[in-house]
Structure formats: C-alpha cells, structure tokens
C-alpha cells in the first residue's frame, strides 16, 4: 500500500473553517479558565468534587477541540469519572471517621 493513500485515511479534510475553529478554541479556553476558577472558589468539598468533574469534562472538550482525541478519552475517564469517584469515597471515609471520633468523645 502506498503512503499517500494511507495518509488520506489518517487525515480527512477539515469540515470547519479556520475562523470558526479559532472562535471555538477561544471559547473553550475561556470555559476552562472559568471552570478552574469555579473549582477553586467552591468551598464545600463534596460540591467541589462535582465541580472538578465538570471541569474534567471541559478539559476533555478542550483536548478534543485541539485535535487530541486520545487525550480527550484519557481526560474523560480519569478527570471526569475516576478522580471524582476516588475523592468522593475518600470524603465519605474521612467524614465518617470525624463523626465517630466526636461521638466517642461524647460517650466518655
């Protein structure tokens, strides 16, 4: 198989104009900055995890817009799903520990 034919499979022509792409990229960059600020400003840990998950989705969209579908998939699975799950479980654990500690003191 000749190389040009192969490359045609790998790189299909753009279907979005360059100007539209610029608009899209700037929009998503602004959204990501807003999302990061939102995560930092959220004070309640459980809500912060949800905000972080939304931020993960925004980052995934950013990577997709910048033509990195592989990284998009990784970010989507890790940033939007795996990390929030681990954080929520840890929060549940920490909270429970704190509660039983208090009640133990009260018992004495």
């Amino acid at each position: 198989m000749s190389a040009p034919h192969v490359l045609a499979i790998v790189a299909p022509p753009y279907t979005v104009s360059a100007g539209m792409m610029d608009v899209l990229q700037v929009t998503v960059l602004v959204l990501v900055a807003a999302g990061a600020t939102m995560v930092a400003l959220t004070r309640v840990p459980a809500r912060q995890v949800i905000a972080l998950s939304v931020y993960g989705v925004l980052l995934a969209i950013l990577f997709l817009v910048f033509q990195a579908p592989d990284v998009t998939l990784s970010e989507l699975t890790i940033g939007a799903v795996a990390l929030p799950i681990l954080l929520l479980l840890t929060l549940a654990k920490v909270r429970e520990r704190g509660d039983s500690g208090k009640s133990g003191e009260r018992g004495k």
Partner: protein
Amino acid sequence: MTPRQRRWIFLIAMAGLAAFYLWGLTGLPGFGNYPGPYGDVINSIAVAETNATGVVSAVNFEYRGFDTVGEEFILFVAATGVATVLRQMRDEREHEEEEAGADDEAATRDAPPTSGAIRMVALIMTGPAVVMGWWLASHAQTTPSGGFQGGVVLATGFILIYLAGKFLAFDRFSPADVTDAVEAVGAGGFAAVGVAAVAMGLPYLTNYLPLGITPGAVSSSGTIALISFFVGVEVGAAFILIVSELLDQTLLIRQGSQ
C-alpha cells in the same frame, strides 16, 4: 513576622514569579507551530511501518513501548500500595470497634437509600460501559483509543453495579483475589510480550507478530494490539481493586457498626 510583612514577601515573590513566567512565555514557539522533527517523522512513517492507523497507540506501544512498561508498573505498584495500606487500616478500625462497644452514635445513622432513578440509569449503563471499555481496549490500533482508557471504562462498568445499590453484587463480580490475579496477568502479559522478543533473539519489545495486510484493520499491527489488550486488562483490574478497597473502607465499616 507580622501578617503585613508576610503579605509583602508574598507580593514580591508573586511579582518575581509572574515576571519569569511571562519571560518564559515569550520564548515559546508560536501558537500551533510545531518546530520539532519527531512528530512529522512519526506521522510519515508510523502507518507504513506498523499498519496501525491509531498512530498515538503505535507511539505508546511500539516506538516508546519501554516507557509505557514503566507507566504500566507505576499503576500496578499504586494499586498494590492502596490495597496494602487500606487493609492495615481496616484491622486497626476493627480493634477500635471492639473497644468502643455497641453504643456508637454514628452506627444508628443510616446511609440514604439509592433512588430508583440512579439505580435504573446505573444498571442500564453497565452493559454499554463494559462493551465500550472492551471496544476501546481492543481498537487501539485502528482509532484513537487504547488500553488505558478502555481499562478505566471497563472498570466503570463494574463500579456502576455498586452505584445501582448492589455493593455485594459488585464484590461478587469482582472478588479481590481474582481481581489481583487478573491485574497481575495484565501487567505481566505486557512485560512477557517484550521478553518473548528477547527469547527470539530480538531487542526487547520488538514487534514480532505479523502486521496484517490492511492498515487500520482490527487484526493488524502485531504486538501493538496485543499490548493494548494486556494494558486494558491491567488498568481495568487495578482500578476495580483500588475502588473496591476504598468501598470496603467506607461500606463494610458502616455495616459492621450497625
């Protein structure tokens, strides 16, 4: 040091950092410009050399396969570490429980029941998540996907079973010792694919399997597809292991104290 002084030190340090940062930014290549040769070289040779149209996978599992072995074992060690540390903690906790006795206030507090909507959505999503994960893990050579992403999605399928309120079913579907073994098979399989090349007298991780005829076919790309499969198995098992250890921590103790 007064708060006022501290604020000044912070502001001066921030100004210095900002100056260095902006100075550094001016030296970066222009937006969208890639000056290095490697990306272009890989783009022009990867498909012809490996028959994998998922060029990122070709890079991950072939051109820099040795790095990926390292990454794979980072996750393996991390999962092992989590399992070890949390198992010790559970022991500690159980001793505490005996001392505290039955009149623990936290014990009487029930977790809110899972709503019907969550239960149903989770159960509906389980099958598609498993299929999607498997598809991602087995199509690294054809499209943007791969074992890492596929493994996590695969694990998500199992975690959805827990989300549907079936923790015991989750435990039954993925018993810890079986998950341990599967994880080891995944991690060891990757390394073994490389060692097999050495046994044939080739360099470690050489792509010695037939590459197939059609670029981008599922059966093409030789060891790239095989390694992606093993990575998917490893990552999926490792992730299930980590989550189920954490779930044990949160749920079994809650159950135990009732």
